[in-house]
């Protein structure tokens, strides 16, 4: 152990530390993330591409045989599912980057408690996590759009608007998931249960692979309350012009905005009370 010499209390620029808190958290997350770049890309892209091929092309072939080439909404099945797969990719990527670090920070490594011993505030921790998740979403959405475009599943002019809506929906949903995850005291089983009873049904019942109105009415509500469906509807409108009334557009956007606002508002106080306990 060598000696350590310093003048106590001189090193830190308090104003600066307080101003950039959320970004310091984001920087740390990106730093950790950079270690898994390889597998992140492999999964972030590998999984959706597999879905694209198996569902878009595989099931698509069956659909086309059955409908005599009519497809759904007058477009091929591939074009029909593409916006849904984009929504899924975005939501999965952003959500993963919010829920896992939150569990890790509060339960697994308890890193958030250590962070909170510095000038960083609980709110800044929450914001930092959201920032990183958004960055991750940007990457995954862009890459996936590129693939969809190469498969001829979406027109090039729709890429930018779809980028915005799918990313926004994903961030909104992630905020809601953060407010849920921060409430998990220490039960990893609960974490898995949410995956199976919330995330997986959302993926399956939100009109992702078929028009929602094909479902029996008693299952349709799952779609109505799922950000995935709202995101997908917007995507279909933007991608191949699926007809949507103005009020429907407004409704989808408002719903997603509400999810975002409620999620953030519900997450902040719990971050604070949990860290300041």
């Amino acid at each position, binding site marked *: 152990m060598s000696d*350590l010499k*310093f003048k106590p*209390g001189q090193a830190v620029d308090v104003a*600066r*530390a307080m101003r950039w808190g959320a970004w310091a958290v984001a920087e740390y997350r990106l730093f950790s993330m950079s*270690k898994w770049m390889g597998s992140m890309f492999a999964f972030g892209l590998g999984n959706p591409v597999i879905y694209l091929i198996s569902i878009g092309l595989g099931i698509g072939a069956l659909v086309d045989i059955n409908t005599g080439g009519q497809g759904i909404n007058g477009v091929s099945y591939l074009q029909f599912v593409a916006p849904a797969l984009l929504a899924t990719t975005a939501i999965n990527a952003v959500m993963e980057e919010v829920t896992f670090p939150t569990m890790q920070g509060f339960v697994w*490594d308890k890193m958030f408690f250590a962070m*909170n011993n510095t000038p960083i505030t609980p709110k800044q921790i929450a914001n930092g996590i959201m920032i990183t998740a958004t960055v991750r979403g940007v990457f995954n959405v862009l890459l996936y759009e590129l693939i969809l475009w190469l498969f001829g599943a979406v027109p090039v002019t729709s890429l930018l608007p779809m980028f915005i809506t799918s990313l926004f929906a994903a961030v909104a949903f992630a905020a809601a998931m953060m407010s849920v995850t921060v409430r998990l005291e220490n039960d990893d089983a609960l974490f898995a249960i949410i995956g199976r009873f919330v995330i997986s049904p959302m993926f399956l019942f939100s009109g992702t692979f078929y028009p929602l109105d094909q479902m029996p009415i008693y299952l349709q509500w799952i779609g109505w309350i799922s950000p995935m469906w709202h995101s997908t509807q917007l995507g279909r409108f933007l991608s191949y012009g699926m007809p949507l009334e103005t009020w429907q557009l407004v409704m989808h956007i408002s719903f997603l905005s509400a999810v975002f606002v409620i999620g953030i508002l519900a997450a902040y106080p719990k971050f604070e009370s949990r*860290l300041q306990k």
Partner: protein
Amino acid sequence: MTSDMIVAKDLKKVYGDFVAVDGINFTVKQGESFGLLGPNGAGKSTTMKMISSVSKRTGGELTILGKDPDKFGPEIRAHLGVVPQKDMLDRELKAWENLYTYGRYFGLSRKFLKPKVEELLAFAQLEEKRNEKVEELSGGMQRRLAIARGLVNEPEMLLLDEPTTGLDPQARHILWDRLFRLKEQGVTLVITTHYMDEAEQLCDRLIVMDKGKIMADGSPTELIKKYSSKEVVEVRFGTDKNEQFADEIKKLADRIEVLPDRILVYTAHGEQTLEAIVAKGMNPVTSLVRRSSLEDVFLRLTGRTLVD
């Protein structure tokens, strides 16, 4: 700016309806080394968390570095170094990366941190382990890393919650020495511990806590003088036999404590008392005469031994 680093008045913390800290008063001055001593569950860590300006107090007043932690948490924390009881290191990051990322939370520049991280690794004797993940470090190494991490912002006050648990004897002594040198440079130290020798070595002043209350306070020597005798004789007669000699021995001493495995005899002159015991025909299996310690103070105050 006052020279009082911590002022606690009637400080209270309640979890649900459980009172963890029950109205304690103390002051810590700049450059002092202050100890919190007490058995498991006494409320030491809870007090530390309130001092760290993280945990919100339930009642009373608390001023840290002249400010109210409820209002100025981040400003205060900028000047504190905290070594929590549980390390809370990032297990996926390497040793040096833990120090670096933590430094960034204080808004410290990369330029500042680059040499700082090396300096801290040397301080914690982890130079060779700089590229190991936390997971791959031994328990004691993780502890040293957590201590180094608490120093990254060159704090005015260092809060150490049981700093030496898990360290080998040599590392413990080296750490004491280094902490002492930090103190010489003006760093205020607040330390919780179960170890008497540690408290005696490190603390100018300490409070003894039990069940959320302060039982006594003062310097280690003051406390020993006040609550114990000069010397202590420890005698063992074998399991289940201690009780039967207790009454007889009581007559020969200022005070005795009967523990399950031995009897502690408090007296000014240890050797003489031991001779007297033997002269009465009581032959202990083992016996030991020693100086009185904080452990004895503790036993007197709480009726319990520290590490139980």
